[in-house]
């Protein structure tokens, strides 16, 4: 591994002598840097979007799909005994992370839209509600149903599936959309950088043919160009990612939006998420330029 890094370092530092043969500036630089920057920017945005919808889907999944409810109607005989039976069953069910009986105050909040804040729960035949939160792996709902039927026949098990399905579905579709966009942008990035490298090399056709005529080895010529364009691709991508992160930081944060859509901006270490974009861009630029350079060189005698 150390060898690889050393080689990469030597490659990036380059050979000052060989370096000079590549014209220092011009439109091809702007083209390459801009293409890399624009695509890296879009990739950062698409990635942030995918990650945000990913978080959203996770949240909905965990909030909705990992929670389920057991209801014991108030009309049930021995409601308390049944409740205890349910709690006993849950205590021995693998995959259950926690469970709790929803208390009166919370029930009042949940029912307020229906009966107003002023309701007297004593007057309502409010059922006993037990909220279950699953472990990530989930539990065997069927088995639980079965055991409940045996030990607390009045308990009604509600998986919330009906409510959560559309939300999780929608979040997943958004997430897929984000990944598709990301894949498209990475593909565009690759083609754009390849074309920019090709156009830059074509513009430097004379430089390359002169070098070849005075006896420079193919590897020597290719290396100077490949190095230059890899670095340009890297720089462009770093600029693009930085601009992307800036744009994300300037986006209004989700804040009070009741957690419906989590913020696009990542938090903490999450800000490092797009580091791989410049690396991928650099690798693409490296491969694209090397291929174009070798093809051009092989066309020269």
């Amino acid at each position, binding site marked *: 591994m150390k060898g690889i890094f050393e080689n990469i370092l030597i490659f990036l530092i380059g050979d000052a*002598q*060989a370096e*000079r*043969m590549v*014209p*220092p500036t011009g439109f091809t630089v702007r083209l390459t840097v801009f293409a890399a920057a624009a695509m890296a920017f879009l990739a950062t945005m698409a990635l942030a979007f995918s990650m945000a919808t990913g978080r959203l889907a996770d949240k909905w999944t965990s909030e909705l799909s990992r929670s389920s409810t057991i209801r014991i109607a108030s009309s049930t005989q021995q409601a308390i005994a049944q409740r205890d039976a349910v709690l006993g069953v849950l205590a021995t069910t693998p995959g259950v992370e926690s469970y709790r009986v929803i208390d009166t105050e919370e029930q009042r909040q949940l029912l307020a839209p229906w009966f107003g804040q002023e309701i007297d729960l004593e007057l309502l035949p409010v059922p006993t509600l037990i909220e279950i939160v699953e472990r990530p792996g989930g539990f065997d709902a069927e088995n639980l149903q079965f055991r409940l039927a045996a030990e607390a026949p009045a308990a009604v098990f509600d998986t919330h599936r009906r409510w959560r399905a559309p939300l999780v579905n929608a979040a997943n579709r958004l997430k897929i959309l984000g990944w598709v966009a990301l894949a498209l942008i990475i593909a565009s990035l690759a083609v754009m950088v390849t074309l920019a490298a090709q156009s830059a090399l074509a513009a430097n056709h*004379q*430089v390359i*043919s*002169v*070098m*070849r*005529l*005075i*006896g*420079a*080895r*193919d*590897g*020597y010529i290719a290396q100077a160009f490949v190095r230059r364009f890899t670095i340009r691709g890297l720089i462009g991508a770093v600029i693009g990612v930085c601009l992307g992160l800036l744009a994300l930081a300037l986006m209004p944060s989700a804040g009070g939006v009741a957690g419906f859509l989590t913020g696009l901006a990542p938090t903490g270490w999450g800000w490092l998420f797009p580091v791989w974009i410049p690396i991928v861009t650099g690798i693409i630029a490296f491969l694209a330029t090397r291929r174009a350079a070798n093809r051009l*060189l*092989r066309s020269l*005698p």
Partner: protein
Amino acid sequence: MIEFQGVSYTYGGSSLLDEVSFALPQGSFHFLTGPSGSGKTTLIKLCYAALRASAGQIRVFGKDAATLDRDGVAFLRRNVGVVHQDCQFLDHLSVAENIALPTVVSGQAGARSVGNLQDLLNWVGLAEVANSFPPEISGGERQRAALARALINAPDIILADEPTGNIDWEMAQRLLKLLIELNKMGKTVLIATHDMALIRAAKTQVQSRVLRIQAKQVWLAGADL
């Protein structure tokens, strides 16, 4: 140093050289003439492997040019100084840097060649434009720069394609003198030219011979030249 054995060359369909055989021994001085379009440039390109013979064998430094791989060709060119008819340079480097380029490529860039460079620039009369860039110099200056670039590494073989086409007579004489000097140091020289006066001038200073391309063949010209 250079040996053609039954070499033919065709561009597309039209054959240009037909079973040509000749040899340039080490330390020899040759001119190459022939009408415009007869194949002088083509023959020189064959010598430094810019073109591959359609048939026959070309030996340079004793090696068959057809068997060289790409790095072999590069190595060959580092030991053959070529003045191309269309003098191409790197337009972003100064004239002096362009002339020094072969030393960079062959890894000899150092004190010794910088000394050479200044002498060479003076001799070919480019000292004043050494820091100009190639698009800023005149046609004759370009040709002299091309010659200087071909000579900077003191290669064993020197191939010059019309090195005096755009140059006045006095300067042409100077350049000829330089080539004769190098020839006396043991270098093999081949100059393609249509300038009979130059050939006659050389005859008085050095043991030179004239190759003439005619009817797809290379003839050794007689005393009539």
